[in-house]
């Protein structure tokens, strides 16, 4: 198992899951604030950029493409 924090809340995932996989496994479907409301995964294969998160301080990481690493700090991105 691995553990990552999402907006300071700790959640558990399985080894090898993408960040999106960990978030969805923990029951979350949305984690980015867009003009029309919250967004989560849409294309799931790195094309649409709907699922962007900040990981360990680095902005613009596609959650569906990045494999989660134990201890990752994931933060919400807000685009007005």
């Amino acid at each position, binding site marked *: 198992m691995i553990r990552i924090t999402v907006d300071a809340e700790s959640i558990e995932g399985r080894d090898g899951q993408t960040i999106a996989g960990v978030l969805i496994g923990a029951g979350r479907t949305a984690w980015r604030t867009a003009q*029309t409301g919250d967004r989560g995964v849409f294309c799931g294969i790195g094309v649409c950029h709907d699922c962007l998160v900040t990981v360990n301080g680095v902005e613009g990481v596609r959650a569906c493409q990045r494999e989660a690493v134990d201890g990752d700090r994931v933060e919400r991105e807000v685009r007005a």
Partner: protein
Amino acid sequence: MTGAKRVAILGGGPAGLAAAQAALAAGADVTLLDEGGRLGGQYWRHHEQLTDRRLQHGWARFERLRGVLDRAEVHTGASVWSVEASDGLVRLQAVVGPADATARAALDIEADAVVVATGAHDLALPVPGWTLPGVTTAGAAQALAKRDGVTVGRRTVVSGAGPFLLPVAQSLAVAGSEVVGVHEASRIGALAAGWLPRPWQLAGKAGELVEYVGALARHGIPYRIGSGVVRVLGTDRVEGVVIAALDAEWRPIPGTEREVACDAVALGHGFTPRLEVAIALGCTIEGDRRGRFVVVDEAQRTSVAGVYAAGEITGIGGADAALAEGAVAGFAAAGGARDDARISGPLAVRRRMRAFAARLERAHGIRPGWTSWLADDTVVCRCENVTRRAIADRADAPLRAMKLATRAGLGPCQGRTCGRAVEAIVAEAGGAPEGFDRRPVLAPVRLGEVAALGRGSAVIDTEPARRDDAETTVAAVEAQQ
């Protein structure tokens, strides 16, 4: 290995893997690059511990293809951001490392020939409410189920067109979601016209379809043709959908709407080829709004010397077509002779599968009436939240002016998600949409990374738009086209 041809292969899905195997067999030095963390592409997307083996099709073939790669140089997690072909030489520049990380390792590759096998992504048509969390593409549902062992919801409605919806429904069911229904937009007439004549061309494809429908029946999943999701309901997330019967042109039939409760929706109306690399290399692309593809000859040669193309970028034909085309392309790129007995099998399959691609389009191709399920205020461009009305109002302007005025297609995905829909709306409003698939940026790389390599100006002719942060991804930058 002096004297051996150097063949670079872009893409590690069925086409790219078959190309690598064939090029190695023909004696070439092979370098294969894929942007994913693992080989296999979308078709064989997997994780060693997380993937349920029941969801893998043709896995033995994948293992055989992967097995010969110890004789090749393989880079996964490689984002190619620059390609050039001139004077008989191909030059590729990539960064290698975790997705969207900073300071990934630079990789320069020089080759005598390149096989472009970049594949396709889902084409999900807009539906009112489709920006609600819980709506994904069918490909996302498939990827999450196969790669990560999760489903977005507990009750999923699958809607769109084409045989791909069936394995998606199966994956959802195996990964733990109830599948309320699979809705295929095409009606019996189109399906019969595409699937029934000349059964010998199908070579088992129709049987596969029947098997899948049987599997759905065993899971108790209804498969309904001539119907689709025409609206998604909910406030903060998906709470249900409106299903309607669709006519032969995919217009919702009034009076047939019914609400169905669900917490997830998987949409897939077809596929869009990933043409960026082929376009950047200067390959001739042909087609119309129903689909634009790389033009290839019998040996999968493109219009550019030394550049070969295989798989979905030459026509949406599925994995069997991609495997055959990849083998032909890899063998030819390595200098193998066309009459070599080792390539006669793939050549024959290639011919048959090109007919299959045309039949798929006939049976499941997008019909123009779909735009009538849009409302004026439906968001079409998800990145920039541009509505149907905003696009239609500017339809008479040149495409570039329309994009600059509305911002449709100028967000992080650069129109990859909405391009086909925007073109349809512009055309319907009397405009002439051309060239939506031209993009200056091949793959999302960070400006900082490219700047650190000291030669970013050649490919990145874009200007930072909203964020002045130089570390933002290039794809998140406004496209100046």
